[in-house]
């Protein structure tokens, strides 16, 4: 498996706070990697650095062999990296179909016209929104808005998909459907880096996990291994870890 994403010495400060501190990890092609850590450990900042919302103060980000640290977000998107947001951000005045068409029109494919409409409908169908193509995002439930955001990200035809707590707030049935959907996207060849707190999802989906605390990398490895790792348990639960077992925070 070749390396798709390579992060090395990534650092970002906000004033005196070092949100991401010399972080390094890699993601191989077709992997599903979980980016874990307690609240405030810098996970979303990492996603923002990768996707170009923020530029790093130091460090290197290699994506498909190209240095992308500090590139503007639209260039990174066109290189094949798409993301969803922790709090859903649909384009509120556009219909579901137009939300997806936006990704199609300016992503790698630059699809426009009838072909793009067909493709938008296919993507909405793919995430389970076939019936609400003409609706505005405000009329959808929360989970459907998340699906819409995913469809818009897929419209970019990404090699790497960054999911920021995409599975949070789902009920058990929706969670199963969500996990199946992510797995099938991975089966199609999309590499996935997900920030997640839902441990069931991490165990069943992730090939590998990267765990952060206070901006630093504290563990990396198989999900079961890292979740049993002493440092990880301590980061989630505090000093008095002793007999609590795994870190289901």
């Amino acid at each position, binding site marked *: 498996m070749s390396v798709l994403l390579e992060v090395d010495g990534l650092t970002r400060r906000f004033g005196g706070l070092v949100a991401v501190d010399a972080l390094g990890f890699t993601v191989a092609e077709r992997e599903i990697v979980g980016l874990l850590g307690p609240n405030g450990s810098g996970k979303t900042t990492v996603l923002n650095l990768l996707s170009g919302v923020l530029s790093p103060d130091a460090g290197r980000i290699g994506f498909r062999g190209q240095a992308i640290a500090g590139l503007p977000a639209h260039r990174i998107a066109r290189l094949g990296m798409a993301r969803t947001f922790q709090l859903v*951000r649909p384009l509120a005045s556009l219909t579901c179909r*137009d939300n997806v068409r936006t990704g199609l*029109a*300016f992503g790698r494919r630059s699809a426009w016209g009838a072909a793009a409409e067909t493709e938008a409908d296919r993507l909405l169908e793919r995430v389970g929104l076939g019936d609400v193509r003409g609706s505005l995002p405000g009329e959808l439930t929360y989970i459907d808005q998340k699906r819409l955001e995913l469809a818009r990200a897929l*419209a970019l035809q990404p090699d790497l998909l960054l999911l920021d707590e995409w599975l949070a707030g789902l009920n058990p049935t929706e969670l199963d459907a969500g996990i199946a959907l992510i797995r099938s996207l991975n089966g199609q060849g999309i590499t996935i880096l997900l920030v997640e707190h839902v441990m069931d999802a991490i165990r069943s989906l992730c090939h590998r996990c990267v765990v952060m605390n206070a901006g630093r990398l504290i563990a990396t490895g198989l999900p079961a291994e890292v979740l049993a790792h002493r440092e990880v348990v301590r980061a989630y639960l505090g000093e008095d870890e002793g007999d609590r077992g795994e870190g289901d925070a």
Partner: protein
Amino acid sequence: MTGRDALIGIACLAGVALLAGLPFVVADYGLSLAINIMSYTVLATAWSLFSGPTRYVSLATVAFFGIGAYTTAVFVETLAWPLVLLIAMAIGSVVAAIVGLATLRLSGVYFVIFSFGLAELVRQLVTWFEVNKTRTLGRYVFADITAAQIYWQLLALAVLVFAIGFLIGRSRLGLALRAIGDDETVARHCGIDVTRAKVALFVLSTVFMTLTGAIMAPRWTYIDPAIAFNPVVSFTVLIMALLGGVHRLYGPVLGVVPLALLFEYLLARFPNHFSIMVGLVFIVIVYVVPRGVVGLVEDTVRRQAAAKSAA
């Protein structure tokens, strides 16, 4: 749908033909009123072309309008008229591109203030140049152009601004701008080069403002910086567009017609209290019709439809 489109197209053509015939049936006063309305139609529609989707409130309208007017004043006696318009377009576009690149990364209120400052800056520069270099503050604009010709040029410009607005609405740029208006960060993550889209639209929008100024200049016969760069123009355009509604192409004109007539009336009846009256109109519009006439109508229609489906 296509039958309806064709009908709308024919209605538009008929409307333009009727408007083109106007100078043959109205007297001087009517024509001057029509010129006023037509010029504000172009300005307000061009303004909302940029400010509607991006939600950047620009007070720089008169900067470009004035650049156009001054270009005419300088070149009208020595160059052919189409050439004058081309030069105005070129100068306006270059200024707009520089300003756009420098400022469209600013957000919200900073842009408003900058755009207002820009108009003042250009006015002061022109004043400085005229006083120190040409040694004359005002200029006479003697052109062999009749009022009816000015009206027709403005009408053509209005047709053009509507046509371009219509085409943008159906283009990739139009989709990009709506996405930017909704959420700039998301737009970037969809692969949209936000800065380039905004600058392109800003330049396009200001070209129409510059041309309006260039075409209008011969109306005055005499201009100086205070006339050509009068900030009231920027505010008037803003309030007209807001009254009509900026999220539809045909919105601003619905604000231009009633306000142009109202201002005409106020100026005749209360010449000394005009500014106060205009200020009151601003406040009333912002409070009563924040989404403009178009928004008001759309909301009413939606409410009635909802009531009907509930019943």
